[in-house]
């Protein structure tokens, strides 16, 4: 009996795997002879890859705009995309915990490139007991200086996988890095206009650690390290007390956490409710934060609106 069941399980597994295996070879060779198939784990990283790769690549992004990469559950079509890819870009620093297993189970042969290679991770404080006190913070892209390292890593990886296009990738990256320099300048000027004692916000998700460290913004979060833990009454009470004591001027609702909680905290403290800040994902292309540069510009505009005098 047990044996029979094992046999059936093996057959089912083989059946489910074989289409994925069968598709890898033809797709890589016939369907995309000129375009390099590339996968990026989430939308912001995807934008860097698109800027550098341009027309030479066929890009698939796994976690779509608005989705949360911390707790994403992959679909079978993700496995297929990975199996067909020549280069796979991940953020690393334990941002996409589900990615390693997915890459292994998809049978992907592509090089997995960690886009944060060369970035020294900041640590973030974890409020919840049992999680340990600190953990490396994966949201490195919020510092534009780090974004440039992402872009350089993407450029080098693409050039290695597709040497014929190396020159194009280099030129694209060069132009984009120039834009990022301009963006960094914009952000510094905007922050300088906010009085120092007002450079403090509370957001419902602590993804802005790098932004805060780079541009002098203090951040307080009502929730722990990840969006998957539910806030307790103690968490909420602690943050309300802190806003009152330190007179924090604004509360920001994030695009992927519970907005009701932020609103309650704002009500109870008289802090201003800021607009939506984009942190972990871009908006859809027609939204206010369709690209990385638009996202940073949007965020700095919202910050200035809530904190400026």
């Amino acid at each position, binding site marked *: 009996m047990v044996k029979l069941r094992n046999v059936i399980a093996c057959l089912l597994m083989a059946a489910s795997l074989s289409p994925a295996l069968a598709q890898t070879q033809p797709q890589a060779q016939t369907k995309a002879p000129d375009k390099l198939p590339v996968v990026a784990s989430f939308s912001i990283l995807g934008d860097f890859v698109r800027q550098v790769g341009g027309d030479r690549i066929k890009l698939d992004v796994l976690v*779509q705009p*608005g*989705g*949360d990469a911390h*707790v*994403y*559950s992959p679909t079978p079509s993700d496995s297929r995309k990975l199996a067909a890819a020549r280069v796979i870009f991940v953020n690393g620093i334990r941002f996409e915990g589900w990615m390693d297993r997915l890459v292994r189970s998809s049978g992907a042969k592509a090089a997995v490139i960690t886009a944060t290679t060369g970035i020294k991770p900041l640590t973030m404080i974890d409020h*919840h*007991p049992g999680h340990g006190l600190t953990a490396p913070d994966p949201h490195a892209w919020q510092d534009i200086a780090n974004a440039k390292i992402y872009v350089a890593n993407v450029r080098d990886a693409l050039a290695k996988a597709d040497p014929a296009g190396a020159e194009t990738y280099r030129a694209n990256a060069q132009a984009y890095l120039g834009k990022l320099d301009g963006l960094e300048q914009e952000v510094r000027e905007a922050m300088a206009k906010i009085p120092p004692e007002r450079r403090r916000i509370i957001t419902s998700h602590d993804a802005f650690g790098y932004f805060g460290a780079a541009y002098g913004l203090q951040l307080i979060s009502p929730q722990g390290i990840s*969006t*998957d833990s*539910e*806030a*307790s*009454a*103690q*968490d*909420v*009470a602690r943050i*309300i*007390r802190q806003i009152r004591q330190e007179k924090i001027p604004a509360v920001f609702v994030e695009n*992927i*956490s*519970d*907005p*009701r*909680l932020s*609103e*309650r*905290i704002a*009500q*109870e403290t008289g802090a201003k409710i800021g607009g939506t800040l984009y942190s972990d994902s871009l908006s859809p292309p027609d939204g206010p934060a369709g690209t990385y540069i638009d996202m940073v510009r949007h965020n700095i505009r919202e910050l200035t609106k809530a904190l400026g005098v």
Partner: protein
Amino acid sequence: MRACGVSVIYDTFLGPFIEFEFMRRALVGACALAIAGSPLGVFLILRRMALTGDAMAHAILPGAALGYLVAGLSLPAMTIGGLAAGFTVALAAGVIARLTALREDASLAGFYLISLALGVVIVSARGSNVDLLHVLFGSVLALDDATLLLLASIATITLVVLAVGYRALAMETLDPGFLSSVSGAGAPTQLIFLALVVLNLVGGFHALGTLLAVGVMMLPAASARLWSADITRMTAIAIGIGLVSSYFGLLFSYHYSLPAGPMIILMAGVVHFVSLVFGQAGGLLRNAFARGRHLEA
């Protein structure tokens, strides 16, 4: 010394509610749910429909999800959607039971499973699974004015309707044949009762989420049954247990940093286990004692 003791008691038991408005709101919301939900739970148990509440709670999900899809985390949209889906399933289950070979519990089971699956699919269509968690687990710590008003209105409506229809409902519960033989109030009574259940589940869903909204309705009622077999006394005991669980659940969430909604239900669970063992009307000890006496005699 004495003053110190008093201030510790104050800080532990009253301080959180005096210092923080969100704690007061959570308490008021949970109490409203307990006061209206517990009597309904008592009737559900006496009518052997204890699992109906659970089924109805799942049935609400696709409606709430549709509301969410249209308007985001909007109170009116999700309330209307939830009510519509709940009423539809309740009515449809009754109609199917009358027209086909399926009994009411079987058709209800079929409908609620379909509803649940549909609800999860609809929420996922919006893109994020974090949103689904908010829909499934509610936010008792983030009750705004509109939600509190909704909870209070539902409690008021429930209590008024129960007060008016108490006699008919009790009669129909204890002897369904009798009421339909002396008047035509049998079927309407059942329908109005189910409508109240749906109403309370939709209210509870905003505070505790679809999965736990049933808990505050059924657990206190099931515990109360172990202390008394009299409907009126069961109702009073159930409400008492609901209120105590709400208060201590929030207190535990505050002092030990645990999620608030589940803690309220767990407190009711603790009371339930105590009742199972010590209940005066059919608890474990009581039954063992009664059996011993029979054997002796």
